[in-house]
């Protein structure tokens, strides 16, 4: 998650256009790289996708195997298969999943928004909590608050997410009956018309308040589990970043100006720490996506993690490729957003 290196390179053209072109080029390269890695991984390994997809019995029938291979194009040499895949990709065709028997693109259109819904919820919550706690810890450096926050954030980093998800599910759903069960909506509600694919947003857009509340309730536990880990990470990091900024001359200068503590923290200290914090938030978003796999499997959340798990255990090549592709795109999107935010918070980046 580093800013583009292009800044010094060319002198011609608008800096932003130059930056964007550079970004798009590296993005294409990474997407090709990601598909290549996924493709190689799923083909160079001992597992047999045909057996995995058809089951042992059908896999022993040469006719069925041959037709399966022809249908999914796995009778071709690997290089041909890969370029066929890339060619189809350009037309927006990601192939058909032997696991779900749906076009992968359709599957992903459901799975990606479902995952983004929890991931975005968790990252927003974590940033707010993490920045406040990290700043507090830095200001109370060496005092009781700092030590307590250190233990709490290290605990947050150490809890196995799948276990925490189960414990919370057990306590809030099974015992206390406060939280709704698994899935995205209770059975009594029909899903709102799909616009973004995120149930909460779609319910709001359709003006269905009851659906929105139910969807939010279903979001609560998965988001909470993911937040805990990320908060631990961010608190520790923000503390370090703020400590470094507190040593800066401009913070001392701001105090010498007699500005109230609140202004010093918000305008001077946090603005100063914003670049390293943005960097770690971008990285945290990546690790958060990792966490979704385990959390989704506990809450039966039909997201990217569940889909990747299903595809991986069935050695469903188009499905895995699709997941790899989406992850590459999410990674690049995150990078782009972080880079744009750099230029929002730092004029030196903006004018470079």
């Amino acid at each position, binding site marked *: 998650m580093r800013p583009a290196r292009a800044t010094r390179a060319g002198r011609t053209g608008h800096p932003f256009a130059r930056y964007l072109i550079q970004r798009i080029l590296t993005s294409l390269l990474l997407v090709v790289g990601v598909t290549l890695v996924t493709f190689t991984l799923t083909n160079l390994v001992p597992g047999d996708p045909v057996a995995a997809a058809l089951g042992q019995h059908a896999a022993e029938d040469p006719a069925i195997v041959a037709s399966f291979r022809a249908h999914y194009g796995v009778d071709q040499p690997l290089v041909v298969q890969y370029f066929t895949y890339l060619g189809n990709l350009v037309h927006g065709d990601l192939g058909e999943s032997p696991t779900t028997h749906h076009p992968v693109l359709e599957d992903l259109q459901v799975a990606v928004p479902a995952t983004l819904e929890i991931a975005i919820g968790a990252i927003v919550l974590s940033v707010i909590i993490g920045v406040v706690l990290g700043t507090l810890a830095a200001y109370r450096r060496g005092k009781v608050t700092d030590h307590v926050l250190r233990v709490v954030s290290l605990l947050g980093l150490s809890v196995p997410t799948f276990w925490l998800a189960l414990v919370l599910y057990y306590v809030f759903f099974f015992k206390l009956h406060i939280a709704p069960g698994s899935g995205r909506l209770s059975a009594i509600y029909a899903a709102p018309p799909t616009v973004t694919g995120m149930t909460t947003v779609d319910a709001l857009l359709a003006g269905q308040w009851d659906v929105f509340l139910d969807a939010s309730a279903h979001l609560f536990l998965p988001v909470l589990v993911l937040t805990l880990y990320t908060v631990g990470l961010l608190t520790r990091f923000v503390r370090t970043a703020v400590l470094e900024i507190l040593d800066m001359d401009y913070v001392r200068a*701001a105090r010498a100006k007699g500005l109230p503590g609140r202004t010093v923290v918000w305008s001077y200290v946090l603005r100063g720490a914003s670049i390293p914090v943005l960097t770690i938030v971008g990285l945290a978003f990546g690790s958060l996506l990792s966490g979704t796999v385990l959390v989704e499997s506990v809450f039966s959340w039909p997201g990217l993690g569940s889909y990747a798990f299903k595809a991986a255990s069935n050695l469903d090549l188009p499905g895995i490729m699709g997941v790899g592709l989406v992850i590459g795109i999410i990674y690049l999107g995150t990078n782009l957003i972080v880079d744009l935010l750099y230029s929002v918070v730092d004029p030196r980046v903006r004018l470079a």
Partner: protein
Amino acid sequence: MNSLTIENLTISVATSSGQREIVSGIDITLERGRIHGLAGESGSGKTMTALAVLNLLPERAQLTGSIRLAPRDTTLGDPTEIVGASKRVMGAIRGRRIAMVFQDPSTSLHPQLSIGQQLTDHVRHHLGLNKRDATARAVELLTRVRVPNPEGALKRYPHQFSGGQRQRIAIAVALACDPEVLLADEPTTALDVTVQAGVLQLLRELVDETNLTVLLVTHDLGVMSAVADEVTIMKAGRIVESGPRQRIFTAPEHEYTRALLAALPGSTVEEDADTLAQQLAAAAELPDDAERLDDTDFPDRSELPDAPGDGTPPSLSDADLPIGSSVLPGQADLPDVAGFPSRPGSHRAESSATLDISDGPDEERTHV
């Protein structure tokens, strides 16, 4: 008339090996409308003393003694004690009655905040001005410290100015609430020699015009001899010698002072003081003193977009600097201004230029 009185001030810090005294029982009296120089080698405790006046020492530092700030008008009551003062009391003093200028304007100005915001936030807080009035005041201040194109400067960021201009801006920030006392901590050390004279000249003018009291902390006796009215020499947390500038520089009583003066680059103290005084005079004559360039000294003149061809020296103010041009702000400080005798020690020009380069966006991005 006394403005700030420091009495028996001791600063000590808790270390792993026990309490260590950094400043031991010093007395300094600042008179209104005078520049009081506080000199000493690094580690002598002079910066700590300045920070103590604003109660800005690190939490671990312990203060004893007394620092009293006299009211602007003696009929208004008793002096305010700063040692042990509450947050509320200090909040009303810092920036409002006692302001500070730091050594390096490239670190003391927030790189990510506009000049306008840094010039107005404390003004609005202390003086209760609305945004428009505060902005008007900011323009007035920038004009007073002779930053070109003040309205435009408000929307710019520190890295878009040269080192000298940045320190002028920092001085404007300090003076924004019309304080009684200005603490200047090595205000010229990070600057190129030619720019130093301009900044010192500005300081002198402000003192003469507004009855400001200045505590000028420096290790540079040359700077001190040029502008200070009173001089205090510190060594290892104690005061070695104190008195009027003339007396200290011509008839030092203490061996340490004599040694310091002997170490000055000029052959004799008076000569050195004279040289700087000349520079000051020269600086005063130039309209935008050090920020001017002599075209013969500047090889890349033709690359400057509005370099006039008629031989008049182009003024490299920030307004002329196109964004992304090859001219780094620091280079504006490099060439000697015509009529400025090159002082020994002008190698600082180089280090100041490097500083400005390392300020640039590329450096910032590498460790992101």
